């Protein structure tokens, strides 16, 4: 299949090496454990495996089969055809990390443009070439803040409105370090940005908030940034990049670090990955930032060209002294986001953001009119909001599924006080008809329940 050797090739190669058969090459392997019989299914041909995979895939209900109102950190957006046609080019997806710039200018320039677009979108000075996802990008922000203060400030404040997976990931990352995490108390969810002030002191290294937060709410963080800076700490804002098509960028609030889940930028849902960890910061912190970075320079022929730069920060040079062990970035996924931002551009991204915004607000108004349902918060929101329901969320979702609707996220899982609260998300993929069907289905449930 993908091994091209003929019998004659093998014979000639073995003779050249000076051994009788291939097995002889493995004598360094302890005999007792050499050549185990692997208990795996026998090989399938391409035709057979595609049939098998078709069957497995068809056991899933996709967002093509269902109307999707589920968000909570991963969003169903339209992906222009251009995106996949570019990232499916073998020259991009079968290329290696661009350590050899002379034959990697395509990848390098694409990353450079990714960095340019991310800084423009977030209002920050520099972006790295990306991290694994939104959760690990926050963990890297914690890492960077720890490195910035060299252990003199070890307290990290996480807003309870930060995605639960992001908070859990940070807790995992820091378990071997002197860093400690405060603030992520579910019961303080409604305290707003001011509620974090009480955690600021001389040991605070970093405050992390989300924009829009996990419940879709949007706050102005200007005052918080001032307070955080007054305490000598850094502010990180985890963003949804689509929201930044409409909303003030965190750079304007005075954020020191912007992280984000880049999935909404043209990346398929793909059951949670691979996604894209956005990471941008201020110029003064660039040397403490982890991850790959591409810079512009010239070659020995005087041409403009690109190269991985400041590599001396990274693990392959600094080894145990590096800020992070990060090695890969999300190369191809960052390319997809770059193509997405290029094709949508200034106008397209604003349109998508506004479509999301208006549809969500239409839905919120309609749902709040259904007896028994009410909005979980009065705060401004972007394209996602919490709804208090008259029935358990799981029951509602089962009912919605019968109508071909993928319902919302059960907030009670992460916030005990939000039992029977559902988080619903709206994008340009949801037509008014879809939203009306959702509203009708919810109303019907209430009617049925009251008759039962």
């Amino acid at each position: 299949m993908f091994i091209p050797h003929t019998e004659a090739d093998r014979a000639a190669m073995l003779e050249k090496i000076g051994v009788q058969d291939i097995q002889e090459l493995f004598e360094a392997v302890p005999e007792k454990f050499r050549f185990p019989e692997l208990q795996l299914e026998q090989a399938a041909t391409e035709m057979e495996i595609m049939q098998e995979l078709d069957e497995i895939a068809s056991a899933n209900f996709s967002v093509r089969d269902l109307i999707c109102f589920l968000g909570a950190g991963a969003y169903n957006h339209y992906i222009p055809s251009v995106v996949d046609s570019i990232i499916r080019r073998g020259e991009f997806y079968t290329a290696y990390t661009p350590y050899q710039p002379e034959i990697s200018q395509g990848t390098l320039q694409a990353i450079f443009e990714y960095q340019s677009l991310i800084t423009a979108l977030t209002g920050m000075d520099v972006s790295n070439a990306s991290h694994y996802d939104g959760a690990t990008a926050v963990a890297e922000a914690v890492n960077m803040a720890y490195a910035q203060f060299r252990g003199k400030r070890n307290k990290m404040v996480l807003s309870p409105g930060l995605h639960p997976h992001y908070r859990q990931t940070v807790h995992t990352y820091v378990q071997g370090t002197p860093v400690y995490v405060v603030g992520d108390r579910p019961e303080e969810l409604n305290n707003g940005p001011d509620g974090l002030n009480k955690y600021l002191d001389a040991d605070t290294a970093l405050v992390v908030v989300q924009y829009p937060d996990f419940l879709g709410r949007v706050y102005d963080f200007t005052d918080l940034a001032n307070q955080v800076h007054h305490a000598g700490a850094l502010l990180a804002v985890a963003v949804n990049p689509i929201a930044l098509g409409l909303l003030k960028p965190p750079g304007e609030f005075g954020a020191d670090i912007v992280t984000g889940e880049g999935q909404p930028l043209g990346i398929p849902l793909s059951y949670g990955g691979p996604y894209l960890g956005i990471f941008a910061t201020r110029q003064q912190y660039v040397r403490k930032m982890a991850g790959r970075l591409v810079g512009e320079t010239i070659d020995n022929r005087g041409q403009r060209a690109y190269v991985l730069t400041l590599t001396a920060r990274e693990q392959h040079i600094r080894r145990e002294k590096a800020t992070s062990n990060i090695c890969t970035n999300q190369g191809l996924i960052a390319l997809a986001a770059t193509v997405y931002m290029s094709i949508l551009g200034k106008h397209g991204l604003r349109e998508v953001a506004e479509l999301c915004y208006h549809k969500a607000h239409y839905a919120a108004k309609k749902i709040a009119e259904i007896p028994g349902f009410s909005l979980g918060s009065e705060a401004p929101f972007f394209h996602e909001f919490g709804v208090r329901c008259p029935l358990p969320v799981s029951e509602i979702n089962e009912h919605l599924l019968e109508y071909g609707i993928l319902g919302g996220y059960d907030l009670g899982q992460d916030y005990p006080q939000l039992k029977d609260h559902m988080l619903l998300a709206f994008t340009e993929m949801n037509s008014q008809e879809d939203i009306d069907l959702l509203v009708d289905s919810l109303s019907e449930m209430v009617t049925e329940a009251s008759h039962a």
Partner: protein
Amino acid sequence: MPEPQLCDISVPGRRGMRYPAVDVPKSELPAGLVREELPLPEISEVDVVRHFTRLSQLNYAIDLGMYPLGSCTMKYNPKVNEDAARLSGFALIHPLQPVDTVQGALALMYELQEMLKEIGGFPAVSLQPAAGAHGELTGVLIIRAYHRDRGDTQRKKILIPDSAHGTNPATSAMAGMEVVQLPSDARGNIDLEALRSHCDERLAGLMLTNPNTLGLFEENILEITEMVHAAGGLVYGDGANMNALLGIARPGDLGIDVLHYNLHKTFSTPHGGGGPGSGPVGVSELLADFLPAPVVTIVEEGDEEIPPLYGYSTPAKSIGRVKAFYGHFGMFVRAYTYIRMYGPDGLRKVSEHAVLNANYLRVLLKDTYRVPYDRVCMHEFVAEGRWADAPDIHALDVAKRLMDFDFHPPTNYFPLIVPEALMIEPTETESKETLDAFAAAMLRIAEEARNNPDILHSAPHQTPVGRLDEVKAAKELVLCCGVSAPAI
């Protein structure tokens, strides 16, 4: 001519994409929170496509030729993988859907866990880590959690051979462990005496790459794992070089307690110009309870007519979650496809031919390029790019000159213990003709090194750009379009 930047081809008023009009009554935008400027480019679809297509043509890639890139396993990426991952039942499912609507995805993940367990010889696997270094972090945190669970909080010392990849020490430091470097012996194995001297009550574990980064199978592997275990430590296996071991030996059988697999190296998922990777972790029975949460399990056994019901569980003493959701699912589909297409006999053939190819090249080159640890190698070997009679030539010059012959250079200056190292890994997907052509290019370059050294120093000549001014890049730090930032 260099390709212009996006900001250069942007023209006010141009559009690449149009969206339907808003079909619901509009709401008021949030006061004070709307941005005034969105400084993104304005480009037509044609121009976007041409820009990125032209950029793609500046890249080298597996689809264009061989990457003899030691420690990175750049094998062919089957096209069927790409179709598989894009099936709508895989690409268009939301990670938080109720599990009964994604039983196919869970079945595939469960089966992939089973396959990786079998191939690595481990009773438990987590698919969650996003890349090799991420798998390492997961593994070291598991080792740490294991010792703490037993009250051994003083066990913080992680031993790392001097030939190891930089992520090993970086990961250990990030997990709050103390790094101690171990020397290699004259045959390229771990120095057993040095190892013994560190086997004490502070030992947390040893991070071992086997075959090591010299491409050599650790000849004392059983003695090493026994010694570490006897001292109460655990052995971490860096799976970067797993392509030598499929159906050859199972790391779990050799006494490795935790290992990360690189789906993007061994199991043919594409490197994508630097990611996404995927670094599942396999562990021994002792460590199964510490795996990151969640893992895929069977909730209700099936029978002949009904498939099992799959769901998630959280291991009892889990280190926690290492990323959002469950891992790089799109990569799982590709790796599953690959393993199913090879089956048990095919996987063994993969490693056999990877090793055959490496040894063939070693023999073709070793009289011209010194191979400091010259014994039968596994899937890669390390040669030196230096000659006494060509004193100004370095491994870098050899590497750059190779580009003129349409080959990607080998990994160079790594491992650190070999001077002017050229680390060569051909993989099983290269034919004898390609290997012969590569060897011929290498031999010709060795001749040029003596007869025409300038052509090496000024190489490459045939590439879109020549050698770059890396000092300028680091000094001026121009990191985005249209902005020239001052150096700090």
